[in-house]
């Protein structure tokens, strides 16, 4: 994480200012907002399947923007904004597709699995946080 601070923080290698940290973190949620609001009409027009593919591609574009920079913190923030569109769109589309397609006997279980796997993702993030926080290289 030290490498990340040296590259992107406004006091290099020391700390982020609150405003910069807040911008980077918060832009994802703002992207999510627009993703969620825009996905309904798109899903009605393109169909559930193609919309899911579309948002996956949008998310991957966001990831590309983030890993393509070595110094610019704005690029990290914008990349998170674009990735946020994908996150928002998928967080509507996935339960929608599941609940529309699943047989009624397992419908509840399947949609709950969506939330369960989000929680598993958070667990994975926590598990990876501690071992990687001591790493000093740019990975």
């Amino acid at each position: 994480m030290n490498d990340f601070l040296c590259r992107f923080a406004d006091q290099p290698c020391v700390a982020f200012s609150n405003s910069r940290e807040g911008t980077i973190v918060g832009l994802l949620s703002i992207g999510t907002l627009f993703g969620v609001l825009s996905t309904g009409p798109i899903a009605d027009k393109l169909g559930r399947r193609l919309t899911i593919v579309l948002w996956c591609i949008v998310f991957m574009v966001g990831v590309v923007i983030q890993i393509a920079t070595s110094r610019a913190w704005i690029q990290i923030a914008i990349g998170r904004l674009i990735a946020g569109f994908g996150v928002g769109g998928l967080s509507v589309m996935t339960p929608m597709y599941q609940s529309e397609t699943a047989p009624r006997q397992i419908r509840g279980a399947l949609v709950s699995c969506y939330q369960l796997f989000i929680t598993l993702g958070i667990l994975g993030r926590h598990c990876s946080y501690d071992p990687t926080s001591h790493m000093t290289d740019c990975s």
Partner: protein
Amino acid sequence: MGIGFIPPFLMAVGIMFLPESPRWDYRRGHVDAARKCVAAAYGVPIHHREVAREMREIKDKFEAESAGGQKHHWYEVVTGPRMLYRTLLGISLQVLQQLTGANYCEHHHLTSSARSS
């Protein structure tokens, strides 16, 4: 950060092997495709009564939605009959869920334990 590629890639490729949602198919007039998808999801032949029941449910929902005319504006989430109450109920449930502070506790625990280690 490249790990972020794996889940969306799996999802984008995987979803192409799955059928389109029967409810959307039905809306678009692809009734046969919808029936086929329902039968596949239930794992039964296409003339099974469970498929017929599900198709009837889809039809009823679709007709109930079209009963007030095809065109609904977005602001009807506020102006529609009893809709303001429902919208506010949904919003407050979500807001109160966030206000329990579970996210904050989790994040605080993460950062404080990282500092002390």
